[in-house]
């Protein structure tokens, strides 16, 4: 089922407002909704919310045999799901077009951009590697689930710590860990020398995705991070994934209104500024969470 299109007055109101550079939620044309992160008790469990759009990302690791053609590399798999829970527009069963786009985009932004070092996931060449499995669940769709999912995904990778392992002869031992949320004053002792704290993943760079929406009227400037209504009424989306080092990881503009080359370059410039800001915010939030957390080794 296609979602019912917004009514004519609604459409006209939005277009008129945008023509005067006003957005329905009071944001500036180039303002992101401030993302908030909620971390779960486990490492690698993140809920990311941008306005009313909410996405959960969860990462877990298990040991598997590597693929025969890549014996030195760990495996990263990404599963994403848009269930009818997110919005009544989505139906269960056959993956919708949005879902294919989301899955492919997550794959490109998080996996194919080589953000995570796969070789560091190797335990014993050709025998054992870590398989990281990221599942992304869209809880609520209030526009721009793509950016929110990418953000949740990359934060989950950064938040996650994998257990330390030791290889003795041909035996692989996992140093078991348990994460407990405890107040800072708790007293710890007795670390036997073989037991170590979990280690974070080797991450080369952190890509963030920023989506712009174009409108049919040529005089209306594009808006960043479109809300659901803006997304529905837009005449094309451009998604740019960049990192704070001003490297473009993914750029996706298919169809929509034709854009002048200068406009594309302008959007990239805007994205680079937004991404730098996002990166700072994410780093600060991750640090804050890690400070309030105690990892107990048993």
């Amino acid at each position: 089922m296609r979602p019912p299109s917004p009514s004519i007055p609604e459409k006209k109101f939005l277009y008129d407002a945008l023509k005067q550079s006003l957005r329905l939620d009071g944001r500036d044309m180039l303002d992101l909704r401030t993302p908030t992160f909620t971390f779960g008790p486990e490492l690698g469990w993140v809920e990311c919310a941008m306005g009313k759009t909410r996405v959960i990302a969860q990462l877990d690791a298990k040991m598997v045999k590597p693929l025969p053609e890549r014996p030195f590399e760990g495996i990263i798999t990404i599963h994403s799901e848009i269930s009818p829970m997110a919005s009544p527009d989505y139906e269960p069963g056959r993956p919708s077009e949005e879902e294919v786009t989301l899955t492919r985009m997550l794959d490109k932004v998080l996996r194919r951009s080589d953000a995570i070092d796969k070789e560091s996931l190797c335990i014993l060449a050709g025998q054992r590697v870590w398989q990281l499995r990221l599942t992304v669940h869209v809880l609520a769709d209030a526009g721009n689930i793509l950016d929110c999912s990418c953000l949740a995904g990359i934060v989950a990778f950064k938040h996650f710590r994998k257990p330390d392992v030791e290889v003795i002869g041909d035996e692989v031992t996992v140093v078991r860990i348990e994460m407990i949320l405890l107040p800072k004053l708790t007293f710890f002792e007795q670390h036997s020398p073989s037991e170590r704290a979990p280690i974070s993943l080797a991450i080369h760079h952190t890509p963030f995705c920023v989506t712009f929406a174009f409108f049919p009227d040529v005089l209306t400037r594009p808006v960043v991070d479109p809300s659901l209504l803006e997304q529905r009424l837009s005449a094309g989306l451009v998604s740019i994934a960049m990192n704070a080092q001003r490297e473009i990881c993914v750029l996706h503009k298919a169809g929509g209104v034709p854009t002048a080359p200068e406009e594309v370059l302008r959007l990239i410039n805007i994205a680079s500024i937004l991404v730098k800001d996002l990166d700072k915010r994410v780093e600060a939030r991750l640090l804050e969470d890690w400070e309030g957390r105690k990892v107990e080794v048993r």
Partner: protein
Amino acid sequence: MSSRVELINAGLLRSDGRRPYELRTISINFGAQGTADGSVTYSHGLTQVRVSVQGPHEAKPGTRRETFHDRATLNVEVQLAPFGVGERRRRGRGDKRLLELAATIKSTFEPVVQTHLYPRSTIDIFIHVLQLDGGLLPACINASTLALATAGIPLFDFVCAISGGVHGTQPLLDLTTVEENDVPSVVVGVMPRTGRATLVQMETRLHMDRFEDVFRVACDAGKVLWSEMRDALRERTGDLVDKLEAGPGMVAVKETEET
């Protein structure tokens, strides 16, 4: 490892002897499939695709609910011949990469085809990739533009797509598979009359300053492709007109006009 291949030598020549901005030979052959409304075999270097366009026609019973009351829908299907790719592997219809390719082509053409002229109907674009040596998406898009034009479907403009890459700081145009595996690649589809871009796609990491260089070069290259594609189309239309005039009926018409 592919990174040991010398992509550009000291004389600024690429592995197949081209200069950085040199495009591969393009050949366009119309009328490959008689039953389609428009069809073209487009080869670009060693990449070869055949596109046939059917329609606009009434939507098939099963898909009728997907039609719109005010415009036509496009239906794009891409098939990769197992013998055409380096690694022989059968790809099903559910292959994610091919689905995405089809979705990209569909959304590229939606604003270009004048779909509002054909309400409640469908236009089918069937793409067969016969041989692949880099530049799959550009080849599919260029061939689809030509096939749509030969099918007599009104377009606002051509879409001319080209791939580009950067080796070190040197922008390259029209990458082969060897180059595609090694350097960041960008696909740009331009509408040559206005110079605007309908499609910009990049999937590998590249600094934004480098991107700007290659993006501008690729936009210009699109216009070069346009002249090739336009000439081919004009030649075909010219042939058709000649053939019409050669018919017995036309001779009579001409005589009456002259008298």
